[in-house]
């Protein structure tokens, strides 16, 4: 599992592999770093994530809360149907300031629009 924080130009957290209780701490640190770098919003790229449990969902919601304090946005990039179902249980897709995209470009646009 690897978590990378990139700026191109928007800040993005790229998670690859499985996210569960054993590595959710690293995932949360990456999200914190992204919040510090871009308090108004960033991309969470889960297109290469093969598994996420409720702990991973909780980490995203914590980061979402911090971004929402700045009226920012988090754009989720989902590639796996199972990931989508899990996040759906938590109703993340209906939260204000939270968008779900099929690809990174869509997500960039969503974040850029929020920044404008």
């Amino acid at each position, binding site marked *: 599992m690897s978590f990378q924080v990139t700026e191109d130009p928007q800040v993005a957290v790229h998670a690859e592999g499985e996210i569960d209780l054993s590595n959710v701490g690293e995932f949360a640190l990456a999200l914190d770093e992204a919040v510090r770098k871009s308090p108004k919003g960033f991309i969470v790229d889960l297109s290469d994530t093969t*598994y996420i449990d409720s*702990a991973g969902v909780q980490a995203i*919601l914590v980061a979402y809360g911090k971004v929402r304090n700045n009226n920012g946005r988090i754009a989720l990039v989902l590639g796996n149907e199972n990931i989508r179902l899990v996040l759906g249980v938590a109703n993340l897709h209906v939260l204000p300031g939270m968008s779900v995209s099929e690809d990174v470009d869509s997500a960039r646009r969503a974040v850029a629009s929020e920044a404008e």
Partner: protein
Amino acid sequence: MLFGSTAAVDHGRPPSRQLPAWVGYPVAVALEVVVTAILLLIQPYLPLGGYPVYYFLTTMVVAYYFGAGPAILAIVLGLFVYDYFFVPPLRTVFPSAETPVAWAGVVAYIVGTITVAVATVLIRRSKHRAERTADRLRDSEERVRVAVEAADLGTWDLDLVNDVAVRSPRHDEIWGYSEPQPEWGLEIAMQNVLPEDRPLIREAYERGIETGVLSHENRIVWPDGSIHWIAANGRFQYDSEGRPVRVVGVVADITERKKAEEAVLSQAELLLAIIDNIPVYIVIWDGQLKQFQFNEAFRRDMGWTEADAAEGDFMEKVYPDPEYRRQVEEYMQSLQPGFRDLKTTTRDGREVDVAWANVQLTGDRSIGIGINISDRKKAEEERAARAREVQDANEQLAASNEELAVTNEELEVTTEELRQEVEERNKTEAALREEQAHKLDFYRRTIEAATDGKLIVTERPEIEKLTGPPIASWEVLDSGDLKTVRHGFEATARSVGIDQSRLGQVVVAVGEAVTNAVKHARTGEASLHRTDGSLMLTVSDRGPGIPALALPDVALRPRFSTAGTLGMGYKMMIRFADRVYLATDDEGTVVALEFHISDQVRS
């Protein structure tokens, strides 16, 4: 001979048959008459000269056998008879002579008979004296022999120049030889002496040469190997130049005496050991209470020594009070039987309770035997004090009993009130428990209804009935094992025909169940079961369990968690499993997820 090796000893001499002294006088008269008659008879036929000679012989015989008195009688009588019959003029009673020759005969008679009588008496006395000396010597030898035999002594006479000893048979017996030895001397004797005792004998001889007296006691080894004690005593004899040439002495077997001495010594040591180690006081005193001896226990406990007792009045030190001391002294001198308790003062001024008993010893000495009864006295005092306390307590109890009688009545009333209160409380608790059971049952039914029958709150045994034996199991020790369980379940599920399109959701449900175990109990155990048409994953932990009243929130309220986390685990399990069974109490939680093998993907 006293020291002959084989000399026979005369055991006695028959007493002399001596005639009474007065017999000599008639014998003297008779002999004079007989001699004169014989001379007169033979004179006509055999003219003899020197008639006085025959009277000399007669006087000598009388003097020899009967002594001076009869001899004088014989001389006087003979003078008259000789003069009457043989000196002219004949037949004159008183001595008279006609011629010088006749006078010479008379004088010769007188001088001759007196001389013979005196000489004979002297010889007789000398003979008697020699006989008496010989008698005394025999008597002395007899006494020595008897003494030697009575003392069971062996005798010996050692020629120091030639180292040859003449011994009695008993001597050799004492040295262990039943038969007399052919040769014996100092060197031979030394070979029979225990080697470590030989220097003692050499020293005794060196000392004896100077003092003239030999005396030593030593051990010897008999031919049979046994060891015996002997005592030898002797006297040295020296030549004209003062060189020792002979030792004469006796030897005795003192083995029995030595054994007796050792036994006495051993008994004395034992007695001393007992006296000094026995835990009682022993004091010996004289009749005047001036001299004292103590045993070790008395010295140790009381502090007094014999030196203390020798200085001044010891009784005053031990019993300072004059009146008390007087009573004690009377008791000590009266030697009354039995024990008497006395307060005895120690050297450092303490008073110790001692029970003393007195015993009279030989002479004017007495012995006191004391037992320290301080502890007993203390116990008696404590017992008496306890008895007083008990008596006081009894009196107080008697007084309290009356108060208690009143209090008991009050207590009976109070107890009845308490009993009613407890009964009321038990009823209340029972009602509460019943209410809680109703509430829990209501919650179960509500949860089951709200989840459309997908979450069933049940009991542990019910889940065990549903699952049956496992086909795979995993131990979950920390979060690192979550992935292992998920992948293991996924592989098994795939092999048994779980719909591939649903597999990811199934894995999510399994992951949430195992994650809950790690999150709430740190460890857990997961097992996979195959039932008719279903796969069942059971996850059990030993965590604190879910409170019964929180079950609706855990199962139904969005984002509720008892662990402070997001609380979506059960929602996901309910969403992705076909049925969730939950059994939880304060000993842990068991979650069973049921997946129908033939189900289609749920959107």
